């Protein structure tokens, strides 16, 4: 087993990995940019090193500096976490060249699964369906027209270099096709400097379902069931759950086996996630392999009882997976909510700044992977994830209740966060019914809007706070309120005894 692992990351995932190291008796080595001198992840490390200036390119993306620190600190291995260099084949290669174990798939497998065309070919060969459409971007209207006719409308035009929805056009009839291709090309050109577009079948109301797979260096492959990740804003997951309400035993089994075939065909080792789209008639299509520990890995840990980061480390160290597929069970239901420093009332814009007050919930079935503390100044340079709240319970309804309760006891003040928004998701009828897909956020806008009910109560409270300023003072105390209501904010409304000031 390794003696020392350098963790090439920051925030909650660096802490998560450090904990796994400590529990295995491995010394975790941390790195930090100068913006992270006071960050929480340093508290969990046995050694820490300044890696560079705040911009990611100078610090957490600085391959040479990280390799140098790993050598200087005598680390056996590097865990990249997620994001930053986690799926960068050059980084994996640099580790390999330096005799340091990269905790993840090898650089070859990383390069393969990172290549859209190559990975689709691999997957098709082992009989796993992909979304019908062009395998390679083509030129000329004719080939677009033919393939669109073949897969059937609606179709979608996408930029080859694309991401984030840019250059995408949904086409419902052949009449619109040519215009859409041209518009897509223009947008792709301006966004990515490359006008290449391709076409595929458009899946209406898809669900995003992914399967967690582990594969060791001895050829053993197991999957740890699915995660449903259809609740997304700006194409980024914010709520995930397992089991998915969309799968039955048979479909789950078929998708799990498909995911294992994908991993095996890619000669991939370590933990990997196979992403699928699921359409309304329960056809599933391979999307891509995420070659890292996922942000949402805790929900799999909660239902299977298997520690994924520990498995990553052990697999990288050459240890065989110690259990068989049929020993893996889903117990209960788990949901994760990602807490971001962002403003849902303002287009989800990031909100760095100082955390003036922090109170994190706890209790049965509540897990928090947190990277923050009171008094910390959240730096503006990195991803706005602050922490992850995971609720586990015996069944889905209880897990939702537990999550919703925990969110309402999670207090972060001083910066904007999506805590209130996440709680509103839990209360949305479509979510509680389990009847949702990747357009959930758009389709349920009305249910997700902040209610104005309590604003006057907040103004009232703020006035009193502004007025007194003194701590611990009992301003007034009287026990004679006789009011009746069902929700607290109707009750707050009852503070107001005269609706018309002129009465």
């Amino acid at each position, binding site marked *: 087993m390794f003696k020392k692992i350098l963790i090439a990351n920051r925030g909650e995932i660096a802490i998560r990995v450090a904990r796994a190291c400590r529990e295995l008796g491995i010394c975790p080595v941390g790195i930090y940019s100068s913006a992270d001198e006071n960050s929480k992840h340093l508290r969990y490390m046995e050694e820490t090193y300044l890696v560079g200036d705040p911009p990611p390119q100078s610090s957490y993306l600085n391959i040479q500096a990280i390799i140098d620190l790993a050598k200087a600190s005598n680390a056996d291995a590097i865990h990249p976490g997620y994001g930053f260099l986690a799926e960068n084949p050059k980084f994996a290669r640099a580790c390999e060249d330096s005799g340091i174990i990269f905790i993840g798939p090898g650089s070859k497998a990383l390069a393969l699964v990172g290549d859209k065309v190559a990975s689709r070919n691999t997957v098709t060969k082992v009989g796993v369906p992909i979304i019908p459409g062009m395998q390679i971007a083509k030129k000329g209207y004719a080939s677009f027209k033919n393939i669109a006719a073949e897969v059937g409308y609606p179709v979608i035009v996408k930029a080859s270099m694309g991401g984030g929805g840019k250059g995408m056009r949904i086409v419902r009839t052949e009449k619109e096709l040519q215009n859409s291709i041209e518009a897509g090309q223009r947008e792709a050109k301006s966004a990515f400097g490359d006008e290449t577009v391709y076409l595929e079948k458009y899946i209406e109301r898809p669900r995003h379902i992914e399967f967690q797979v582990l594969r060791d260096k001895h050829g053993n492959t197991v999957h740890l069931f699915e995660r449903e990740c259809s609740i997304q804003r700006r194409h980024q997951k914010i709520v995930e759950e397992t089991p998915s309400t969309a799968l039955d035993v048979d479909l789950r089994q078929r998708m799990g086996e498909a995911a294992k075939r994908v991993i095996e065909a890619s000669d991939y080792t370590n933990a990997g996630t196979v992403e699928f789209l699921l359409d309304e008639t329960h056809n599933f299509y391979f999307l891509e392999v995420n070659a890292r520990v996922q942000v949402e890995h805790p929900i799999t840990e909660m239902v299977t009882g298997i520690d994924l980061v520990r498995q990553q480390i052990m697999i990288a160290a050459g240890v065989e997976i110690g259990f068989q597929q049929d020993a893996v069970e889903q117990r209960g239901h788990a949901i994760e909510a990602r807490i971001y420093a*962002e*403003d849902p009332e303002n287009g989800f*814009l*990031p*909100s*760095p*700044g*100082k955390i*003036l*007050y922090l109170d994190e919930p706890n209790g049965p079935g509540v897990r928090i992977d947190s990277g923050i503390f009171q008094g910390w100044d959240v730096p*503006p*340079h*990195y991803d*706005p994830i602050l922490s992850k709240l995971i609720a586990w319970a015996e069944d889905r309804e209880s897990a939702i209740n537990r999550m*919703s309760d925990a*969110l309402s006891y999670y*207090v972060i*003040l*001083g910066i*904007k966060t999506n*805590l209130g928004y996440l*709680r509103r998701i839990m209360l949305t009828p479509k979510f509680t019914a389990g009847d949702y897909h990747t357009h959930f956020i758009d389709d349920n806008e009305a249910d997700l809007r*902040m209610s104005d009910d*309590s*604003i*006057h*109560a*907040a*103004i*009232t*409270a*703020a*006035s*009193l*706070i*502004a*007025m007194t300023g003194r*701590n*611990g*003072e*009992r*301003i*007034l*105390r*009287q*026990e*004679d*309120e*006789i*009011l009746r209501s069902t929700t*607290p*904010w109707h*009750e*707050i409304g009852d*503070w*107001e*005894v*005269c609706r*018309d*000031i002129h009465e």
Partner: protein
Amino acid sequence: MKYNFLCLNKAYAADVQKGEDEIIVTIGDRRFKVRELTMHENAISFRIKNKNYRMPFARDKKKIYISLEGEYYTLELSSGARYGSEGPGQRKDNVIASSMPGLLVKLPVKIGSKVKPGDTVAIVEAMKMQNELRSPVDGIVKSVNFKEGEQVDAFVSIVEIDESP
């Protein structure tokens, strides 16, 4: 005591009067009688009927942050002059500001540039996200207050535009 607050881009004026056994807070045409209230170090608590309520809060120079049963409010103490104390506040259309703090990564205009509604006048980046600031008006850039590469705060004027008549 009178306080003006900005919350979610709306302005609110509150008038607070302390009576013998109650505090009356008047907001527009609504009046709140607050009858039982304790200030803790970082929370305000009160009781309505048979339930205890507790609102954690924090504050810095200009803002008060409050948590209320799973919702979160940022209230800015405003002078009352800028936004007026009545009705929703109006941000000036000809002042371009970012609603998040971040790095000014692009500033494609200079003093004298002509802009049309929808033209990008600045791009601010924070936490891996780029926010394009577009002109809401037709006009000519009157002043530019930052340079590319500089850090900008939220709601601080980056560019001002002289509107075409």
